[in-house]
């Protein structure tokens, strides 16, 4: 038996222990709360805010692009995107299933698209499942809002490019900003320029996205009025140097070349030789930039990248081709300026000549007889230029060709320009680690051998010959409207300016005039009363020896066709180049050019713009000992498939 007092003492002691324990526990709790609520409160306040506040981006429309006459080229239209708000979707599988049914999409495809986003993007960002939804899809989605509150329908401005892929490579296209493009005002999910003018002037065109902050409950439903709304600011409007009518004329002419089966590929760059303003610019075949505007779908993308004609390549800037006879003016001018010849200098052409123990043929069997510079250009006599090239050597040719813009970057305001090549002894030593052989200069004289040029550099070449030695910088930007009205943008300074001897230059120009208006190869570009000056070029894509071996490969080995030109001969207002890949004969390029010049002068003289040309008017020359490769049907430029967009 234990005495009650002892009992009481034990109870007292043990209860005391418990009391102490409870105090310790409560003190610990108080400390925990102090840490959470006082020390770390900022962090949690932010987390709580991001819980109940949702920030919605209001996409800013990009700046509208106008042509030089103020005609709208690229604008914006309203489109709807439908997306899934992942955070408010309780069961994503169910949502995807229902969304597929409501929107008429393929369930498995949608699931895959959504899964890709889940892996790569943060959960708060809604997953866009339909870009540019049809009105029917929007109506269906709206009617099921009650069951599918996680389906968001947003109106967003979307880029609208001209139809028929007009000037596609010039405008480029827009797309979702990649990881590398982020920063500097570009946030995740932003639509930015990915090619062309859209890329070069992205910052100017982009505008500033607006923001709407709203309160949402745990189900993601918006409650009450927005906390804050900053309206989007539209991007700046740009006026381009492009002339819509001329651009259309260029593309119409190329279309005839494609329709007649001559060629699908080529490029043209038309400049104002006085300023370097680009009046028209094309690369063929083209693509439809509208297909990218709302997110390109896989089928379109693989069709574009799988096409062996590579429609995404910008041939005008990136294609490097042998210039052929169009190079002859550079050689002639070099010889004149270096004092090696005078305009009266003559060479006898007997259909070929020997240099360094090798016989070089003239294109004309039987030869041209005795020719001076003027006639050598007009008749494109090879022997004359072999001789002249041999006289001055490759380095002089290099020097003058560079001054005229060949083998140089033009500095045009479009991304990814390639540089051509005009060889020199220094170049060969540096790149091939070999001495230049004088024999190699001979074929350089007629624009073959190692010489390669881009179409845009050829346009600069034509412009420099036209304006008397100023190597202008081709550019597209004429004026910008930053909200205070149009402001003219001064032309970029020319790369170089060399005072060409007027008399010597006139000999070249006269030759080029003769090409078109005399008995030359460019007669098809003749325009009564406008003194068109030009030069055709028919450049082999493979050597005569290689042809036979490669003929069976099925590759298109037909010659490339060039026409460089300016007009009128005295005080030229237009200069440029038309290039037809596998266009067979230089005169075919002259055919294409005629309609372009016709349109230009019609506009200048306030006459109605001529109707698109026909195949009969073009009179393309298909004669060749070379067989045409089997023609493959080209996929038409279709409108983007507007069902499953998410790439």
């Amino acid at each position, binding site marked *: *038996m234990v005495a009650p007092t002892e009992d009481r003492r034990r109870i007292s002691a043990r209860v005391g222990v418990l009391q102490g324990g409870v105090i310790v526990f409560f003190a610990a*709790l108080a400390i925990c709360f102090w840490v959470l609520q006082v020390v770390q409160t900022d962090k*949690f306040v932010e987390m709580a*805010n991001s*819980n*109940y506040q949702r920030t919605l981006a209001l996409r800013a429309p990009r700046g509208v692009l106008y042509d030089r006459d103020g005609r709208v080229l690229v604008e914006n239209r309203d489109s709807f995107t439908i997306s899934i708000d992942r955070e408010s979707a309780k069961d994503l599988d169910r949502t995807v299933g229902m969304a597929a049914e409501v929107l008429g999409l393929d369930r498995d495809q949608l699931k895959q698209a959504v899964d890709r986003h889940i892996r790569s993007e943060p959960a708060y960002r809604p997953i866009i499942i339909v870009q540019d939804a049809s009105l029917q899809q929007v109506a269906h989605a709206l009617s099921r809002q009650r069951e599918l509150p996680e389906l968001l329908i947003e109106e967003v401005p979307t880029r609208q490019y001209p139809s028929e892929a007009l000037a596609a490579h010039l405008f480029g296209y827009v797309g979702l900003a990649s990881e590398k493009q982020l920063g500097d005002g570009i946030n995740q999910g932003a639509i930015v320029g990915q090619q062309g003018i859209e890329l070069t002037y992205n910052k100017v065109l982009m505008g500033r996205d607006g923001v709407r902050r709203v*309160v949402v409950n745990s189900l993601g439903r918006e409650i009450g009025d927005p906390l804050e709304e900053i309206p989007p600011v539209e991007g700046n409007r740009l006026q381009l140097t492009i002339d819509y009518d001329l651009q259309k004329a260029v593309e119409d002419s190329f279309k005839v070349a494609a329709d007649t089966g001559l060629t699908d590929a080529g490029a043209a760059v038309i400049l104002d030789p006085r300023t370097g303003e680009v009046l028209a610019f094309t690369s063929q075949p083209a693509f439809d930039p509208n297909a990218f505007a709302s997110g390109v779908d896989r089928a379109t993308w693989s069709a574009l990248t799988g096409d062996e004609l590579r429609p995404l390549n910008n041939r005008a800037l990136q294609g490097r081709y042998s210039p052929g006879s169009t190079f002859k003016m550079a050689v002639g001018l070099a010889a004149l300026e270096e004092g090696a010849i005078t305009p009266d200098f003559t060479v006898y052409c007997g259909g070929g000549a020997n240099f360094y123990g090798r016989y070089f043929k003239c294109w004309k069997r039987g030869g041209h007889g005795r020719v001076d510079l003027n006639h050598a250009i007009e008749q494109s006599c090879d022997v004359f230029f072999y001789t002249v090239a041999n006289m001055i050597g490759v380095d002089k040719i290099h020097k003058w060709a560079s001054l005229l813009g060949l083998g140089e970057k033009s500095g045009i305001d479009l991304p990814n320009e390639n540089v051509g090549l005009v060889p020199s002894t220094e170049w060969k030593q540096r790149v091939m680690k070999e001495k230049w052989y004088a024999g190699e200069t001979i074929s350089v004289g007629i624009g073959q051998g190692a010489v390669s040029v881009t179409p845009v550099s050829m346009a600069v070449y034509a412009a420099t010959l036209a304006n008397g030695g100023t190597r202008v910088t081709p550019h597209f930007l004429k004026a910008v409207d930053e909200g205070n009205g149009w402001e003219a943008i001064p032309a970029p300074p020319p790369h170089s300016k060399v005072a060409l001897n007027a008399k010597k230059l006139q000999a070249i120009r006269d030759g080029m005039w003769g090409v078109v208006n005399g008995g030359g190869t460019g007669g098809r570009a003749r325009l009564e009363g406008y003194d068109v000056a030009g030069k055709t070029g028919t450049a082999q894509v493979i050597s005569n020896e290689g042809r036979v071996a490669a003929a069976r490969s099925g590759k298109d080995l037909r010659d490339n066709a060039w026409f460089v030109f300016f007009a009128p001969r005295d005080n030229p207002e237009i200069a440029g180049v038309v290039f037809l890949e596998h266009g067979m004969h230089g005169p075919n390029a002259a055919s294409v050019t005629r309609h372009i010049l016709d349109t230009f002068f019609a506009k200048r003289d306030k006459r109605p713009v001529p109707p698109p040309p026909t195949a009969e008017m073009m009179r393309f020359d298909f004669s060749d000992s070379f067989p045409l490769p089997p023609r493959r049907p080209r996929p038409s430029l279709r409108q983007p498939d507007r069902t499953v967009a998410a790439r």
Partner: protein
Amino acid sequence: MVSAILALCLIGLGQIYSTTSPAGGGASSIFYTQIWAILLGSIALVVALSVDYRSLADKSHFIYIAIVLLLMGVLAFGVIRGGSRRWIDLGPLNLQPSEFAKATLALVLAKFFGESRRGVITRVDFAIAAAIVALPLLLIAQQPDLGTAVTLVPVLFAVAFVAGMPMRIFGILAIVGLLAAPIAWKFALQDYQKERISTFVNPSQDARGAGYQQIQARITVGSGGPFGKGFKGGTQGQLRFLPVAHNDFIFSALAEEHGFVGVVVALGLYLFVILRSLEAAKLAKDRLGAYLVLGVLASFTFQVIYNITMSAGLAPVKGLTLPLMSYGGSSMIATLAGFGLILNVRMRRFTN
């Protein structure tokens, strides 16, 4: 002490009003139900106060049998809500017998240990007491309501501890418990219970599911800051990011709206109530009284500490309410009745 208890009830009531108030304003039906529960609870408190605890203890075996029968009844005819069968439908009020099991056990154990002639508790005594606890515990666990079931365990240990059980036995039990834990993990726990525990260890592994509540609880508490967002000003509770803000997570909602200051006040009140009650145990006239106070207080204290820890996202989420504050009629009535018993002991410390 009564005023501290009432203050806690009112704080809880305020939070229930704040978090359940419908969009248009005004009070919810839940709020009025809670007022009724407090009134009924006060009556229960007075009733438990007025009868001498000794005569209650004498009849404790009847109460115990009644409760066990009720718990069996729940399993047979109970109302299912949220996946478990805990309630008996009594028309306007749903009765949750498991809440009353706590006070009943306190009475039975107090009587059992109080009547023991010896000062020291033997292993046999402890085993018998454990069996007395085990029966209702297993019945409640069957509902399943593991949370409430577990709150019965502290009743046993607190009473046994104060009744003089040697520390050696506690040590042995602790070792056995540790060894049994993995076995329990494997066989005894339901999948959702395992999930809750594993999510607690790493809440982000399931940020939308079970870990969600824990993360949200911590955000709720932390974002309250030192002074809170104001009455009805909490975004977490108001916009339902924090689930059951009027019930299991009422303390989180309090912390959000009234900040650290509100937390300290509420903690202080609870501490005061508990310490004063333990004081009553010391002052009790007999062992029976002291053990009774301990028994009632043990499950209360355990639940308070566990719930508040969980409210701060520091313990696995478990369906344990916060006594006196959380919404729940049976809990309120049973808790107030329990304090009736404690006051009963305190009041009769001088009588014979």
